């Protein structure tokens, strides 16, 4: 299945969001996610199924003013 993660095309084999994060190397605990512009909490990732063409945002703590 092909999805878009942080603006980049990715081909993935898993379908659940929490599995996809691991598959793509996102192993840290301090990660926030959104699916097609909607927030997905840490608890909800396990039950969030992805579909072809979905857009995922994976964010982490960074510098801010």
């Amino acid at each position, binding site marked *: 299945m092909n999805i878009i993660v942080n603006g980049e095309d990715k081909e993935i084999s898993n379908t659940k969001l929490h599995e996809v994060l691991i598959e793509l190397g996102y192993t840290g605990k301090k990660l926030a996610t959104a699916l097609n512009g909607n927030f997905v909490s840490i608890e909800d990732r396990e039950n969030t199924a992805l579909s072809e063409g979905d857009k995922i945002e*994976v964010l982490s*703590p960074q510098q801010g003013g």
Partner: protein
Amino acid sequence: MKKFYGVKIESQMMLGTSQYPSPSILVSCFKKSKASVATVSLRRESGGNNSGKSFWSIIKDLDVKILPNTAGCYSVKEAITTAHMARDVFDTKWIKLEVIGEEDTLQPDVFGLVEAAKILTEDGFQVFPYTTEDLVVAEKLLNVGCEVLMPWGSPIGSGQGLNNIFGLKALRAHFPDIAMVVDAGLGLPSHAAIAMELGFDAILLNTAIAKAGDPVTMAEAFSHAIISGSLGRKADPMEPREMASPSTPVFGKAFLE
């Protein structure tokens, strides 16, 4: 000192974490300034890169309160989604709410700001709205549940200082019991001192320190300025006069003509 959503902060300086020459200089600036709050953001993470993890390990060791922002958001939806993501990651109800309305000045979209503040407050967030000095907007923000206001000094990163002292004075006078932070646009320690002399409760700055030739010394300078301005306010300054008034007594002066 006023509390921020019930929290007493140790110093009246809040400091951004962006644009420092190096992580070690960032840490030194926090230590030297004794800043009590750090602003942070959320940005895209590359898989396996762990840049967020390394940044977070630096920030959590600072032992300061964390204030996540919604910097760069131009719509209510974007700001709300970012706020939820920040609460998930940083485990805090605090959110520095930015809804930007204009690209060149980074001026807040105050209409979107009030709308987003209402939604987030109802959802349990404790909102620090980045706003202008507009009284009507301030009142609407308070009406939707904000307990803190963050008026700008001047456009973000401009270093211009306080562009509308009259407006800031009016804001302070109209809402004397509300915790207020002058956020953005300061360039010099004297700007921070003036803001504190006007009666504001804290200063939030970033670029003025991070982009100084010697950021650590500038952090110390701002720290002193904030304390000086705050003490000056507490000391009840004299009223300015139109004309001179001799400070040395005239009585007892010798006649030497």
